[in-house]
């Protein structure tokens, strides 16, 4: 018999008096003993609501759950609060996406790990501390005897997630639920955490319910895969079968719409294309060396007080081409984007733009010719402005377009160009989804017809199917307007798809620059090799 059996589970959230959100609509799956099951879906698919329902952590005020959740034969839906509290942490435990916000910042790691033991096992303070040190060692934290007294902010993201895992496994649970445990982490750290989870699962004979939006991770960790969309299960089966021959068009689309290192189609397939035949035509990338150089940086540097964030970066961006910039968090990618967009002054080096020193170009002219798209579509649009105002403001500032009516016509044209309805003109940003907002941000950048567009992780905050649509849009726009892109991302596959030339950055230095095909086929720098080998599913 399976450890966990979920049957006919439905979760509703009351939004207000009239609207009810059906987050989960009657799903059923099983988690056998000592197996790992992956729950895959994009945002809004109901995967996290399912996890919360199993843990009995759904907010009581505005949600209702129905159906059966059998854990070792006991229906958790019928269990009282006290019984659930006994189970949580001891039998079933959970790790969350954001380790920083899941750990209490005012207590030491050791105290928080020990708390679980004191609560469920009744251990004394000294004994729980001793056990916490052992556990922190087990999850691969270096020097656990010292780190046990560290507070969360003193640890890196990976170390925090390890501490969370130590807390989760402290009472030797039989089921571990991991809700996007690596999404907030760098790719090299992600690999380590996945290996750790696999090792713990085997060593401690736990079952693992792994929740993620990323199918490529699933390939590494799961025996059994459940694909969810809009609160329903689209497909489930053994991982090997599902990856070899996906049956459901949505699963097929999810697998195909993520760019891979192996091929570079002219367009990425999107969900709407399925089921359909895919064109196999490839796009050729790379520079011939004869392109006009629109921007050249020499020894570009940025220091904050004593800390050097960017240490002398030199690169060239060709007209109509894309320069990819890859690096992990803290490598200085965004700082380069800020300096090139003249949002932050550089502390050293030189930038030549269109043959002139960039600092000699008047501010307004430079800002018209160089635009930027930010990572977070929720933060980059002023919440108090309508979309129409957001789009017409750049034109107003630069005195472009023929009067109010002309600017309005131009804004409507921009909306059409990024595939948004004209009715969007009068709406506010909060009425749109993440992908739509990023389209608005792109339309705003396009309003000035820039020659260089800096894209700072433009698709990182979006679901994979939306990612594919936006990457296609950016590519179409480049083909149409011959813009140059500086494309920044931590995702090697996305960069490979978009870029003609790729730079790899680490700790403020550019460690390798090469043609897009060259760098993936024959990486020279050890860090590039490490990045490539850490990519899931390769």
């Amino acid at each position: 018999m399976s450890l966990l059996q979920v049957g006919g589970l439905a979760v509703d959230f009351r939004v207000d008096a009239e609207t009810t959100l059906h987050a989960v609509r009657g799903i059923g799956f099983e988690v056998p003993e000592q197996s790992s099951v992956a729950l895959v879906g994009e945002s809004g698919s109901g995967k996290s609501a399912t996890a919360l329902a199993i843990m009995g952590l759904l907010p009581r005020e505005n949600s209702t759950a129905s159906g059966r959740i059998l854990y070792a034969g006991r229906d958790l839906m019928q269990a009282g609060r006290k019984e659930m509290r006994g189970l949580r942490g001891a039998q079933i435990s959970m790790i969350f996406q954001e380790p920083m916000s899941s750990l209490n910042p005012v207590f030491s790691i050791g105290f928080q790990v020990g708390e679980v033991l004191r609560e469920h096992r009744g251990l004394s303070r000294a004994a729980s501390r001793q056990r916490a040190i052992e556990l922190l060692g087990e999850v691969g934290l270096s020097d656990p005897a010292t780190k046990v007294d560290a507070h969360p902010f003193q640890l890196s993201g990976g170390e925090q997630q390890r501490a969370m895992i130590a807390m989760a496994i402290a009472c030797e649970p039989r089921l571990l639920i991991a809700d996007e445990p690596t999404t907030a982490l760098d790719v090299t750290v992600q690999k380590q955490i996945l290996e750790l989870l696999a090792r713990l699962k085997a060593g401690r004979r736990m079952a693992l319910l792994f929740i993620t939006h990323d199918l490529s991770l699933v390939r590494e960790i799961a025996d059994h895969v459940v694909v969810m969309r809009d609160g329903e299960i689209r497909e489930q089966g053994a991982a090997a079968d599902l990856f070899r021959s996906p049956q459901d068009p949505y699963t097929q689309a999810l697998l195909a719409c993520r760019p891979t290192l192996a091929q570079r189609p002219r367009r990425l397939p999107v969900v709407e294309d399925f089921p359909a035949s895919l064109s196999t035509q490839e796009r050729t990338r790379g520079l011939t060396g004869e392109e006009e150089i629109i921007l050249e940086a020499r020894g570009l540097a940025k220091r904050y007080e004593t800390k050097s964030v960017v240490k002398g970066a030199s690169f060239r961006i060709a007209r109509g081409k894309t320069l990819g910039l890859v690096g992990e968090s803290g490598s200085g990618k965004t700082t380069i984007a800020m300096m090139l967009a003249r949002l932050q002054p550089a502390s050293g080096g030189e930038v030549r733009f269109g043959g002139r020193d960039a600092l000699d170009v008047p501010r307004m002219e430079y800002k018209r010719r160089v635009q930027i798209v930010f990572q977070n579509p929720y933060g980059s649009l002023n919440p108090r402005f309508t979309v129409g105002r957001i789009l017409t403001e750049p034109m107003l500032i630069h005195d472009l377009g023929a009067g109010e009516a002309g600017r309005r016509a131009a804004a409507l044209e921009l909306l059409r160009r990024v595939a948004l309805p004209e009715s969007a003109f009068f709406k506010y940003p909060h009425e749109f989804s993440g992908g739509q907002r990023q389209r608005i941000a792109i339309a705003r950048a396009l309003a000035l017809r820039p020659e260089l567009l800096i894209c700072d992780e433009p698709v990182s905050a979006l679901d994979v199917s939306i990612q594919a649509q936006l990457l296609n849009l950016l590519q179409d726009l480049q083909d149409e307007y011959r813009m140059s892109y500086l494309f920044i991302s931590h995702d090697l596959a996305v960069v490979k798809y978009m870029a003609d030339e790729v730079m790899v950055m680490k700790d403020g230095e550019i460690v390798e620059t090469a043609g897009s095909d060259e760098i993936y086929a024959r990486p020279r720098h050890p860090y590039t090799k490490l990045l490539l080998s850490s990519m899931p599913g390769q």
Partner: protein
Amino acid sequence: MFLAVTAASAAGWIVRDWGAEAGVSYAPPGFLGAQTRSSASVERDRGTAGKQDDYGIVDPLAPDLAEIAKTLSGRSSSQARAPTLAFGGDKWGRDVLKKAVKGTQTSLFVGLAAALLATFLGTLLGAQAGYYGGWVDDVLNWFYGVFTSIPYLLLVLAIAAVLNEKGATTVILILGLTGWTGIFRLVRAEYLKHRVREYVLAADAVGASGMRRMFVHILPNVSHVILVQLSLHVVAFIKLEVILSFLGFGVGVDTVSWGSMLAESATELLLGKWWQLAAATLAMALLVTAFSLFTDALRDALDPRLK
């Protein structure tokens, strides 16, 4: 969602009418009535010696009786003093209700104007300090430090001495010039937080000037803080006007305000005459509630996310 919009803006309108018109449209008749009556009765009182008779009220709990008495006495002679008034009268026989209504005009005007001045100063300086940082922030913080380090009453007395004039304008200036500090601090903090937000960077990237980013982009996003401060300061300033009146720096003796009413009621209470205090307190409580509701509704109406 549409219903919520209508409700929010409707609430805003209703509350606005409520708060504003109570002070303006009703005040002048009340003021005139009270004035004529008081000047008449003062003259009369000078003639007759009996101080005790000057308290013209008998029973505030019987408005019907008072009404009858008033019409009766009004018919016999228009200048005659009514023995009872609906809400009682003060030392000079002036109608407390009318005083309270007239006081609304002064107090609301003083409170509102002073709070607007303080909020304007605080927002302007706070925006500059928070947005530009660096030496601008240092200079303004130093200025703020100087202001807050002087004991409050000393500062008030100093400004009063410099202006050397009594009246509503002086009170507004005193309160406005001394009250901006707290708002400055809060607005500065909000600007510090917002200036690094991506939407502000995006505005910079499309070439928006510093002033434009400060007041077109950021200001609407911090307006909720400013509105709450505004409503709190209106209330605080109305109370402060009492202290100023008590110290003799308030509005002149020829005008009535809640502050002066409260100041008078201190001595009256000893004689067991509580109604002036009650009327002023009640009026203040009503205004404070109404004004809070108004700013709340305004805040909701301005936030597109709540529509």
